[in-house]
């Protein structure tokens, strides 16, 4: 099996596999839902509620 002509593809493949392993271990999903971070503090973007935070959870 002569892999010399495929050296660039194999390099690309190893990068992909390495990143896939890193992503799998760190719980990174490529199709995550878009989550708003830390909205309970500002609470300005909840569609059907105009009020402030309902829960004080500190």
């Amino acid at each position: 099996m002569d892999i010399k002509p495929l050296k660039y593809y194999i390099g690309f493949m190893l990068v992909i596999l390495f990143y896939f392993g890193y992503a799998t271990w760190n719980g990174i999903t490529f199709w995550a839902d878009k989550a708003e971070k830390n909205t309970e503090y500002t609470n300005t973007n909840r569609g059907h509620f105009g009020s402030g935070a309902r829960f004080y959870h500190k």
Partner: protein
Amino acid sequence: MATVKQLSFPEPETFKCPNCHESITLFDPDGSEFCICGSCNSFIRFVTAYTPKVQKNVPPVKAKPLIPLGAEGTLKDHKFRVIAYLEKKEKGTSYGWKEYLLYNYEKGYATLSEFNGHWNFIVDKIWEPSLEKAYSDSGTATHNNIEYRIFNKYTPVITGLIGEFDWDVMEDHPRVNEYIAPPFIISREVGNSGSNKAQYFWGEYTEPEEIAEGFGLNADSFPPKVEIGANQPSRQGASFDTLAKVSILAALAVLLVVFLFRAIRPERELLNSDFNISFERNSTDSTSYLGSSSGTYEYKPFLSSSFEQPYGKTTLEIEVRANVDNSWMEATVVLVNEGTNETWEVTKGIEYYHGYESGESWSEGSKSQSIILSKIPEGKYHLNIYPASGDPTQTYLHIAVTANVMMWRNILLVWLLLSIYPIISYIRWTSFERKRWMSSDYSPYETDN
């Protein structure tokens, strides 16, 4: 017979053409029986070693040989001297090619052929004894367990020649079948020297740079390649088998990584509960519900029980299910880290409609939705849930939270990335093959004709 089993090339000898008395050089004087006078185009036979006799006139060559007669060089690890040059064409067509007869002092003759800038190094059974076992039918030939596919059938005609031969080349009127298995070619000739026995010749596609280097010539002086040679190897085709194997190994490595990590950190259910939901009363009118005037019924927000995410960073799936029936529900779900107060908020709509129309049942939507959150750190969490619906009869929401779920989409994406190059390579290979076979009447591909 060409002089063989020698340790070096014989010394060239010259003699006078019996017709025009011009000087002719023989490069294998003891082995060559026929030669052509480059001046008067007489075809001369040596009746005895020292008795040349003009037999007939032959057509002169139209082009000067690219590799001059008498040139010596090394090709395929053998030393050769060019002793003849022929111009040929396919009978009944205008397709012409050139052949250089190469003489080796150990084994005899080999041939270099050139058509449209594509070169082949061709040998007979003296060089390739396994040709004795070669066999063929109208569609395929087999040699050394390699199957060759028929590419062309023709009768060659000599249109010009110069040099020397150990046989009467003008008496050759073979019918030729050419079979290919790039970079190799098998030529089956019947009718050489009046014989009806099939003779096989084996050729290998040879880059002009290799020939130029072997004979100390400038490769730039070689004719450029036109179209695709009959047995020209495809770069993609040559490495595709290896590429396919490597790609399959990579695809399996992806699965191995997944299953290895899942063995260390298995999928774990962190929460799985039904939550009763109820309306929020209007603060100004206790008989109506909040938002009911706009058709959106806002339910009381609620908290889930706490749960522990035990892994490092992981993927969380939050499944929200409601018993919607021709209605919708929307839930804003806030994941709250009780240790850091960090939050992740996602709003999902659940809708499910069905009916019966024009004699057919139909349905659309789903009673559940999944929320996928990425890189959720280890810690204690709960959910804040803010439901709303167009249906005031909803009584519960089912919530399930799972850590380290199987992310098939990640796997599919990586497989897709890994397959891009093999797919492109395959397309280019088949495109190359289609172009190759456009020059053949025996193409395995469908043609417009």
